[in-house]
């Protein structure tokens, strides 16, 4: 076989899935779109004894709009978010981020929840989810709880999700009319992952930056909020100089990664360049 052998379960309800996860504990991995788990299994970097395929749990898929926010099921595919009229109208940065992921095949199968819990530092969703201050709803043996996006990503491939929990929904407040967002990315040439991706939500009143939220991925081993940029620009006029000065802080205090595709200095530079470009685009 390509991967090692494993036992396979396909529960049809969330409770059933949680029970299986409790029973099998660390031996089990949850399978959603499979675009991160399956490759690591094929390389035998992961050899879980049990696979819990949650894709038959219908409740976890789709987007709705109850009371001023979008509720996104964890199993919603990238393509569904890219193409949803509701998402395009209410929170277009989500559609835009989805469109920047992989290729058509990946977007058709890969899920937002799967990507978030995998927490690949070069994945696209974390920057946007951070900038949107999303709430991540998870279910576990003791019921449900909500984790704030800023608390969710902890370190390389590690989130605040407990081993027996499953991410069920992503809650995103619909930004006010004076708030606009954009996600810009430099693709790693071969894989299409983000060498650096920057998501910006800019709230303005006239020419003044009321508030700016900046999420960055690809630079450090975990996606982060560039708080230096945010505090520098808040309350200031959106002039080219002010934007450039704020963007300079996009990698402050960050330990940038090194691999064969880019040096730490290059990655840190990209964070600044894309922060500047994203804010400037929204300010123009």
């Amino acid at each position, binding site marked *: *076989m*390509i991967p090692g052998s494993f036992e396979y379960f396909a529960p049809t309800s969330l409770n059933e899935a949680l029970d299986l996860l409790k029973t099998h504990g660390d031996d089990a991995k949850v399978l959603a779109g499979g675009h991160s788990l399956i490759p690591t299994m094929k390389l035998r970097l992961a050899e879980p004894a049990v696979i819990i395929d949650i894709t038959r749990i219908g409740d976890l898929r789709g987007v709705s709009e109850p009371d001023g926010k979008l509720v996104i099921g964890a199993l919603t595919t990238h393509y569904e978010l890219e193409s949803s009229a509701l998402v395009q109208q209410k929170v277009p940065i989500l559609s835009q981020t989805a469109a920047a992921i992989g290729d058509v095949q990946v977007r058709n199968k890969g899920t937002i929840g799967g990507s978030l819990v995998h927490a690949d530092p070069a994945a696209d969703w974390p920057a946007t989810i951070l900038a949107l201050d999303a709430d991540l709803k998870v279910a576990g043996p003791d019921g449900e709880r909500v984790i704030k996006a800023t608390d969710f990503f902890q370190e390389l491939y590690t989130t605040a999700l407990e081993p027996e929990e499953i991410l069920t929904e992503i809650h995103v407040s619909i930004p006010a009319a004076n708030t606009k967002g954009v996600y810009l990315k*430099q693709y790693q*040439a*071969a*894989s299409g992952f983000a060498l650096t991706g920057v998501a910006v939500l800019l709230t303005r009143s006239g020419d003044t930056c009321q508030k700016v939220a900046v999420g960055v991925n690809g630079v450090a081993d975990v996606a982060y909020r560039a708080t230096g940029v945010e505090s520098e620009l808040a309350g200031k006029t959106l002039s080219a100089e002010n934007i450039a000065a704020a963007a300079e802080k996009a990698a402050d205090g960050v330990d940038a990664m090194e691999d*064969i*595709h*880019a*040096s730490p200095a*290059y990655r840190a*530079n*990209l964070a600044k*360049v894309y922060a500047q470009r994203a804010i400037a685009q929204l300010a123009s």
Partner: protein
Amino acid sequence: MASWGEARDSRLIGQRIPRLSGADKVTGKAKYTFDVNQPGMLYGRILGSPVTHAEITAINLSEAEALPGVKAAIPLIEPGKRVRYQGQEIAAVAAETDDIAKDAIRLIRFDYEELPYVVDVEEAMTEDAPQLHEDRPGNQSKPGIDERGDIEAGFAEAAKVVEATYHAPVQTHVSLETHGHVAAWDGDNLTVWASTQAVFGTRRDLAQHFNLPEDKVRVITEHMGGGFGSKFGPGVEGRAAAELARKAEAPVKLMVTRKDEHLVSGNRPSMTQHVRAGATKDGRLIAYDLRGYGTGGISGGAGFTGPYVYHVPNVRTEKFAVSINAGNARAMRAPGHPQGAFGMDSLMDELAEQLGMDALEFRRINSDSQPRRNEIRQTEYTLGAREIGWHRRNKVPGAGRGVKKRGIGMGCGQWGGGGGKGTQARVTIHADGTVEAVTGTQDLGTGIRTVIAIIVAEELGLRPQDITVKIGDSAPGLASGGSGGSQTIGSVTPVIKTAAIAAKQKLFEHIAPQWGVEPEALRAASGKLYLASDRTKTISWKEATGHLGMETISEGGYWDEELRIGDVAGVQFAEVEVDTETGVVKPIKIVAVQDCGMVVNRLTTESQINGGVIMGLSYALLEDRVMDAQTGKMINPNMSDYKVAGTMEIPEIKAIALDTGRKVTGIGEPPTIPTAGAIANAVYNAIGVRIRELPITPDKVLSALAEKGKA
């Protein structure tokens, strides 16, 4: 003596004719080796060495053999021998399914004693480095030294001197179809479907390996998915497939994995050259002193061209290969040329700038060292410069405004490609009017199948689709050489042409007596035979061949060297846009003016030029085999870290296939030579900072810009 006739008399030669296999390829009907299946066929897999350098002390196949579904297992290295690079073949298995074969190679046990290794070229040349060969002290081959003229006198005459170091990485072939074979035995007859550039070479190798008469081995290559110089024989993997098939008494398909393709199936060697060159005040190259080396892996060569294209009277060069623990180089699309051209064309621009001369003018003055090529090259300069808009380039490099800066550069190349003796071919006319052209060459995707049909159809007055071309099979016994060195068209088409002439003559000899004329009075065109002196006197092709009755015309041809030519010149111009904040280089347009001798099929000729340019820009900007000095392993043996240019990276390419006479020539390789130099020069023209190391990655561009900013 045969001739191709005048261009104005050609109906088909020089036109744009879709390749005959095109529809089959795009609809998936075409069967590549990967697609060949045989009844009862097994799947083969090779265990490549996971360690970089070790002496193998024992191999135990029993666990693998015991796995249900495994039908054969063989060692590929003897205990006591060494594996000298990651991926080197240790053993192979054949099993009922590919999954079982994969599990089985995990069960192969082997003991080894690890040895010190070195995978970094500079480190390999240090005193402390492990010595990999007894006959390569310091891990260096005996240098090749070339001395012409008087180098010191040359430099004394020079008004300007440039000294620089240029570097190009190891590039792997990344053929879309990996190396592979399907082997089937019938008694002591062996049939092998091979993804190969050399049907007859593969047959000979296998016959020798199994100690069989050559006629007991049949090799078939109906379609193949790229080789670029890496597929000239069965290799370890092809012999293993046949060994496994013999042992298991069942056909075996064994395709090399993408990872092993990067590790063991060949590569273009790296190049580092320290060069010092001078030119006179009036812009003539006068002295050229080079010390260069590269790695071709554990024992491969690493030759490259330099000086290149331009005439230099006083030359001293010293070149050698450095051994490291990595898979060996193999011929790769214009071996030695793209790396040499990148160095030479970068140097030419640096010298031109020192002299205060226009880079194109400087090249015009320093004529090509060969007269015919020089004449063509001067025309190419004019055509290419006009097409790219050479006058638009920055007079002061880096002078453009804004974050994204554009620049224009150029590069040159030369190649042989004249072909040679050694092809047999037959053109057969049957009584029902069908025509077969048969020869033992193979179509690597270059379009030779269609070219053969065009040539026969032109001679017989038929359409290309009326000709059944049978190539890529050794069974008819009509040998042809391997397709390398851009030699196929020059080797094959003269024989096809003379065979078609002879077959036509035979048909004329049948018809002429019935009309009471000499055969020479007849002509063939538009599906008819007619009388040259009276075009109303005609007979349809089918009616004419009907007169053959029980006879069949089948004529061989001969290699007429007057029908082909070598020594082609090529010039390319590139326009790029450099994002000075991210360092990303985006090619905007590449103009490739290529000396093509006589273009037979303009469509497939342009296709080859496009392909060469794409491979060249991929070399310039993207490809790099990265070795990890600590582990001795390749870090990017895949396609998600080793980037090959795809649709998104390809700019507008203007292929100008230049007809330069009525002799065929091969151009599979030459269009990939000038691209990297042209792009490097365009980048310099855009930003005013020279990147002397390929690939020109965003990281390198930004670092260079930062260095310039500091200065």
